């Protein structure tokens, strides 16, 4: 609770500093709008504009991308553990693909996946999969030998072994891979949305931000950033924390 209180105080302090800078008028109100203007822009876009839809749309895409990445990650992990050739191949692929920013692959993405939701999902999965695999594989490689021998002893192999034993056993690494993946996915999504626009309906938050920028609605831009910050806090502070409590903390597996 104390940490929460400290965070709340810090946020309040930031707001005061922001408003203070605004009042001094050092920067033009075009590039440094007041908290009031930002808040109004936020309220207006939530109520009259499509911000709520855009938020839901973005969240849906991120979740889809994450789930797809996790499933792919599990399948790849299974194949890598069963065939050492595959493992070497995948390690090579990871080292090549991991450093490439998704947005840099844009021309290729457009060629392979078009310009719709498929392309955005492609970029999300690319941004998530490699760091996730690095984290997950790392954890799988560090599984205690005794645990593996117990699994051998009771003759559990293949897919079941991965899901019943290896996955829970490597869950701390899996979870930290997921956290990294989430923030990468979110960032990739926003950048991709800015480029691909409204791939359906009124698009997502990235598109919202982009429109604010080209129409020079700075207050709206900051409003969008506020929404993104709140989402980040909610997901990391609440969702992941909850997940941790129910898994690694309950199992005494925190590192």
């Amino acid at each position: 609770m104390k940490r929460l209180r400290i965070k709340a105080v810090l946020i309040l302090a930031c707001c005061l500093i922001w408003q203070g800078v605004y009042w001094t008028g050092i920067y033009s109100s075009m590039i440094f709008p007041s908290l009031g203007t930002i808040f109004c822009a936020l309220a207006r876009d939530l109520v009259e504009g499509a911000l709520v839809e855009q938020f839901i749309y973005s969240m849906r895409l991120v979740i889809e991308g994450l789930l797809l990445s996790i499933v792919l990650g599990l399948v790849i992990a299974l194949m890598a553990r069963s065939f050492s050739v595959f493992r070497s191949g995948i390690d090579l692929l990871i080292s090549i693909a991991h450093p490439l920013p998704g947005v840099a692959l844009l021309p290729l993405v457009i060629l392979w996946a078009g310009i719709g939701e498929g392309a955005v999902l492609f970029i999300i999965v690319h941004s998530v999969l490699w760091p996730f695999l690095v984290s997950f594989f790392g954890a799988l490689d560090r599984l205690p030998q005794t645990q593996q021998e117990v699994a051998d002893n009771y003759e559990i192999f293949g897919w079941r072994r991965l899901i019943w034993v290896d996955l829970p056993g490597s869950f701390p690494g899996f979870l930290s891979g997921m956290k990294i993946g989430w923030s990468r996915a979110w960032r990739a999504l926003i950048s991709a949305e800015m480029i691909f626009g409204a791939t359906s309906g009124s698009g997502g938050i990235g598109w919202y931000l982009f429109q604010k920028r080209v129409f020079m609605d700075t207050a709206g831009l900051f409003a969008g950033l506020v929404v993104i910050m709140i989402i980040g806090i909610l997901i990391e502070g609440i969702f992941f924390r909850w997940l941790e409590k129910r898994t690694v903390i309950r199992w005494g597996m925190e590192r």
Partner: protein
Amino acid sequence: MKKMGWGVIALIVLILTGCQGTQSEEKTLIIAEQYGLAYAPLAVMQAKNFVEEIDPDLTIEWAKAGNTTVIREMMLAGKVDIGFMGIPPFLIARDKGMEWEIFMGLSQAPIGLVSSNPRIQSLEDIQATDRVALPQPGSIQHILLAIAAERELGDAARFDQQLVTMKHPDGMSAMLAGQELQLHFTSPPFIFMELDEPNTHLVLTGTEAMGGPFTFIIGAAPKRVLDEKADSLAVLNQALQKAMAFMRDEPEETISILSESYQLEPEVLKSYLENPELIYTDEIEGLETFIDFMDRNGYLENEIAADEVVWN
């Protein structure tokens, strides 16, 4: 001895900062550099040093900028003195309270909407699932599309959620890849290159959309520059007009200058430059039409009077 050393260093620093001081009194204009046939007079002016000829004290600094949005932001931040852009992006900045004015036109150009799909022959044929690539929302390409949409389909915002933001070269690659993207609102030289391909055709030209000629690119400057560097602006205007005249009078040399910087074959470049719709002039046309349309359809929130935004 040590104290002497520090004294010397301090002296050197003072002298250097003093030098900085004198330098800033020299005249400079920072211009955002842009690529495209529509900006050709800038390239010619730079190559032939026309500014120096007219006023040797005026230095032009060129700032690299990716797109119109970045240029506007750099102008906002004071990092750039002059930006060349379409009229709609200028109006949007003006609408949001920037005290900018147009100090000259630069070019008119045959821009238009290209399609690689034979199904799409007019705006009516564009379905909700078709995406249109153009530089960005609020660009002249977007606004022209919206003007045509209002006239032909009664709904200016009809295609607003179908836009894909792409720089001209990316849009062209995507179109020519023959996959999902089948509509590209683009300008020279890309529009020429796309139409050279076998299965493409023009759905809409800028002139059709406007119902008449219009200025494609104008030069804008913030109030600060208009007040403090008025004479430099006048020099720039002269130099650019000189470049435009040069392009008319010396086509061979123009082609060799531009062919280098645009990476185009001289023959090809020649055919583009000879296009009658590509006109370099400092006249400004179509301003009222843009203001009127954008105001009517909510792209502008405030009233703007055409004569207020033109300098001199």
